[in-house]
């Protein structure tokens, strides 16, 4: 069997050499440029960062501060303000850190609910779910009560929720549905409305 072969070294075509050089040049330029950028951003003031649920807890505490519940929502003057989280996810355990903090002279009580029936007693209801059906049922359960409903799913306001979180540029933002708040006889403070990114009204 005639086998003709010639031991040839690994060679690159001129194209590959040009490509390698181009690559090197781009990496050099890119790295220098990138290095500059990193230094610039590091020089800026240190950006505060935090886990999503802790920051959300901070937001919800602030919401409670700027919402006025109608008379009759609390039995006595020292009745606690009840914040419900539904459903029961282990991630939202950080909300328990709000327990014993006070808002307008009232102590906060945090509760976790997994059944829409349990949420009637709440003043704030955080629907920590993306299950549209669950949200729909939960919103229905608190429909005529003065409950500040908070969600974090697209379309929450359209479904009748009052405050909805969304993330923009790695930061939490929120939108407010004024009509829904009015229906629940909740007065939203100007600080709250001023910080809202979107104030939605239900179109007739």
């Amino acid at each position, binding site marked *: *069997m*005639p*086998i*003709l072969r*010639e*031991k*040839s*070294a*690994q*060679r*690159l*075509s*001129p*194209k*590959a*050499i040009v*490509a*390698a050089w181009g*690559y*090197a040049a*781009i*990496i050099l330029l*890119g*790295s*220098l440029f*990138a*290095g500059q950028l*990193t230094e610039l951003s*590091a020089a800026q003031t240190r*950006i*505060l*960062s*935090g*886990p*999503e*649920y*802790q*920051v959300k807890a*901070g*937001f919800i*505490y*602030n919401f409670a501060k*700027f919402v006025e519940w109608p008379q009759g929502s609390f039995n006595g003057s020292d009745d606690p303000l009840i914040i419900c989280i539904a459903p029961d996810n282990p*991630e939202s355990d950080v909300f328990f*850190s709000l327990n014993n903090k006070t808002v307008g002279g009232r102590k906060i009580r945090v509760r976790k609910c997994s059944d829409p029936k349990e949420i009637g007693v709440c003043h704030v209801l955080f629907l920590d779910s993306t299950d*549209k059906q669950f949200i729909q049922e939960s919103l229905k359960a608190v429909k005529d009560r003065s409950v500040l409903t908070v969600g974090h*799913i*697209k*379309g929450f306001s*359209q*479904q009748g929720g009052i405050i909805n979180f*969304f993330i*923009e*540029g790695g*930061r*939490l933002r929120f939108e407010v549905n004024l009509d829904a708040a009015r229906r629940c006889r909740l007065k939203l403070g100007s*600080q*709250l409305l001023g*910080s809202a990114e*979107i104030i939605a009204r239900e179109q007739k």
Partner: protein
Amino acid sequence: MKYLVWNQRGPRCRGGISITAIATICFLLSYFIIAASDCLAAYKHEQSDREQSQEEEPFDFTSLSLEELKQVMIISILKKPQKLSEAASAISVITQDDIRRSGATTIPELLRGLPGMQVAQINSSTWAVSARGFNHRFANKLLVLMDGRCLYTPSFSGVYWNVQDTLFEDIDRIEVIRGPGATLWGANAVNGVINIITKKAKDTQGGLHIVGGGVEEMGFGAFRYGVKLSDAAYSRIYLKYSMKDGFVDNEGKAGNDSWNSLRGGGRLDYSISSSDSLTLQGDIYSGRNGEREAVVFFRPWAGEKKVNVDIAGINIDNDFSGGNVLGRFSHLFSATSNMAIQVYYDRAKQCKQRICGPNHTESFDTFDLDFQHNFQFSKRQEIVWGLGYRLIKEHLSFGGGDKPIFAAQDEHYHTHTVSAFIQDDIDLVRDRVQLTIGSKFEHSDYSEFQFQPGVKMLYKILDNQNIWASISRSIRTPSLYERQAPAPAPPPPPSAVNSSSPSGKPSSSSSDQPPTPVIPLPQEDRHLRPEELIAYELGYRIQPMEYFSLDSALFYNQYNHLIINWDNSGQGKTYGLELAANLDLSRWWSVRASYTAMRMQINVDDSQPGGKKHDFMPDDLSTAFLVGTSPDHQLVLNSSLDFLQHGEFDLELRSVDSLKNNTESYLEADARLGWNIGKNLELSIIGRSLLNSHHAEFVYMGYIPDSGGINMEVERSIFGKITCRF
């Protein structure tokens, strides 16, 4: 019959080794200096961060005002992977962590460990990859998508794996669905769909350097940088280069299948508003790989008038290049209704330069437009429907080269495909039984209107176990080669045989005339029916303990009108069992296993004109060569171990049964040892195919008896890798 191996360089292959060496050294030096400075800076930064954070107490976010809270960056907690997949199909997901810990450098290597997948390497740049049988270099029953773009070469309806790549660190996950996904995915998804999904630009912010090299993996490097353009717009760019050594052939001699490729690309994600978002992305690439190809030669014998046939392995160089741009716009109508429009353009070109014989260039321009709408139809029904249009322009040219034997041929083809699909997910019993019905409708220039329906049902027995079943019909449109390739190639006119003489004068004891190669040329279009599959599947998943899960699937596939020997002469069935188990022994040690058993029974109807077999092809071999083959048994064991806080040790063992195309069974092991210095720097040593110095995975030229020196064998490779984020 004689077998020759020609190993001469093509006319266009020049380039001095000295220039290469200088270029490489300069490139590596400059790269190292820059990368090292970046990495050092990142490391220092991390150290100072750590010192600061140790002093800080957990921050009380209730002390901030709303305006202050709005400035806080969110550290997102990664969503836990689904405990039990609740899809009514055989699905596996490869996560970014799996990719990182595999140490793989090519996409096919990532797919090896999955049940139901057949992956075999033919040479350093060429693979045979398929799901549920029919594995072949030109496997054509698997659909591969990257971010919604079809990675498919229309000429043979399959994937050129040497061309398809991306920066692995930017891949979010790879979803692999075995079985017909035709109701959503289109005509090529007969046996499976591989969906490669890259990360959003927002998740790849900052810089990344990768550099490494070793035995076989001669050198690779990558660079990525992600920039935030505004609160709503994020972007990234990347570059990746790799150079691989060739393997050895089955006689232990070095082949010419070295491979290098350079690619770059970028992505831009822009949130126009809370309900509209836009993504633009694209890549360009170029590279070269060598290959050995079996070619039929016609040799005039001295003193005789008749022409004899020879088969030889000739070395060819393959230059490939291409690029793509893709835009996707999605809009949210309401909480229960959204739509997306995607458009892309893809260009791919390959030029095969043969030492002796015509060059062969093929280029493809693909234009694709897709629309998809997803909405809640009723309380229990969710409907997704879509429309698609694809135009493929193919340009094939033969001829040219050093000594043209045939007149150059230039062929242009246009194919229009219009498709639509609709799928309805019905909650028959809430949280218990789910029914999915749907169909895809397709019309192309080469196949009449096709209806591809499917029904799937999932029953959740308990929270930790479910059972599913499906029946579906799927088709595959004949590829350009199938419609046009002649069988067998006609002998050239004697004048051409006598007058042409390839350079290098191969001497042959039995001939005083040099041989003349014959490359199959496209013939006029022939009418073929699409291949048809009726698939029956049954699956069961259980997670009895938090730390143990088992996924099993049974399938029975009935194929009709299989295209064999350029005719719809084949029919047959495949059936098999796929098992995947996952066991988390502790927080720092997890073990995975996958086992696949399957059979292929394909019959060729000889009565049809194209069904006659060539003399030198025995029965089993010819079927294996023509429609592909798969191992009867395949077992992959995988262990991921964390040690000493910073260390990672990964091991994969693969046992693959013999193939009908004369490939012997083999046992191989891959290993990776990784060490994390801080969260920004990672060092690893990776060994692949460690148990044998070289082993055959797929005898591509197996139909040629005694095909010495033609087939390549996978060599052991060991290389180091440095990854640094800044």
